[in-house]
């Protein structure tokens, strides 16, 4: 069912190619064909539900740096689910893709999220604002160069920041992040913070002398 849709799509758009996928059929299309291909899938193959709009960051210096991916589901044809991917245009700092809000109104918030976290600008979007981070946040946190702990910046509201003296800080990682390697049985030991015993006064922090020695 989904495979038929992909075969028909490739016949209609000759530049479309198969995309490696572990489960559902997937297809690569050039950015110029993207909206037409998605509209074709919606109108001719009943993909009436846009499940997700997301993007892949292929790391700094890659070309193309970003690829947008659309997940489509049909609510009337059982088991129909395809993904459509297209490389972004624009620069590395400001990649662009066409908006599909005209095709599925539900794309609105998905594209805002993708813009917020990955920095992909969707051209033709009616209201492209951040949706998760606050307006004025200077970074796009899911990009590869952005550290998990975050980058120090100001709180969203200036008078609160002044009253509290608090800033948005890089989160203390304590030897982390939490990554349980495959095959690691004891998850308590896999948690990096379990190795940080400064709280128990067993081992002092570098800038601290131990308050008391515990007897084992």
């Amino acid at each position, binding site marked *: 069912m989904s495979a038929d849709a992909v075969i028909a799509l490739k016949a209609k758009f000759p530049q479309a190619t198969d995309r490696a996928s572990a489960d559902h059929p997937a297809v690569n299309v050039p950015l110029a064909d993207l909206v037409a291909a998605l509209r074709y899938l919606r109108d001719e193959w009943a993909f009436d539900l846009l499940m997700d709009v997301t993007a892949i960051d292929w790391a700094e210096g890659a070309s193309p740096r970003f690829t947008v991916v659309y997940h489509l589901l049909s609510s009337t044809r059982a088991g129909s689910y395809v993904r459509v991917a297209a490389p972004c245009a624009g620069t590395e700092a400001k990649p662009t893709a066409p908006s599909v809000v005209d095709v599925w109104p539900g794309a609105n918030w998905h594209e805002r999220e993708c813009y917020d976290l990955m920095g992909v600008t969707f051209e033709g979007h009616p209201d492209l604002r951040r949706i*998760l*981070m*606050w307006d004025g946040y200077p*970074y796009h*946190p899911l990009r590869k160069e*952005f*550290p*998990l*702990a*975050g*980058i120090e910046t100001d*709180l*969203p*509201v200036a008078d*609160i*920041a002044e*009253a*509290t003296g*608090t800033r*948005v*800080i*890089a*989160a*203390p*990682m*304590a030897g*982390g*992040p*939490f990554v349980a390697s495959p095959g690691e049985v004891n998850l308590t030991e896999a948690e990096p913070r379990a190795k940080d015993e400064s709280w128990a006064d067993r081992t002092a922090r570098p800038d601290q002398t131990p308050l008391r020695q515990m007897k084992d």
Partner: protein
Amino acid sequence: MVTANSDLGYNTKVEGGVIVSQADAVINWIRTNSMWPMPMGLACCAIELMAVGGARFDIARFGAEVMRFSPRQADCMIVAGTVTYKMAPQVRRIYDQMAAPKWVIAMGACASSGGMYRSYATLQGVDRIVPVDVYVSGCPPRPEALLDALIKLQSKVKREPSASRLLSA
């Protein structure tokens, strides 16, 4: 107060409608037994907070069942859940709008320290923006743990020099 020994209780025939006590004792007695919470439910801890309000755990036993969604009428803000940097200014704003005296309970790991969210989006402990009186461990804490925190806060309030603070304010 009802006790087995009625001699220790208040006896109108002996004392004639007059009670002699300390101002601190009276003020703190009133404050501890009607500590209306401001439920700052931000994540899953709020579910446990609701359980505390329900019949099984029944925070009404401690005089704190009147959840006030207006900060003007609340005494104790219970921060139940993950505080993101986006939400942090609003939490502080609501704390500022509460009338003194006011207290804060940081409920659960996230509110106390950021918990498992060591990330760019999460405030690493609500004590960075508001003064916290009692921290509750757990993810989420059991309802009994929150009740214990409330009892601890009440015993803290009982020791406060309320009268001298009122006079100096």
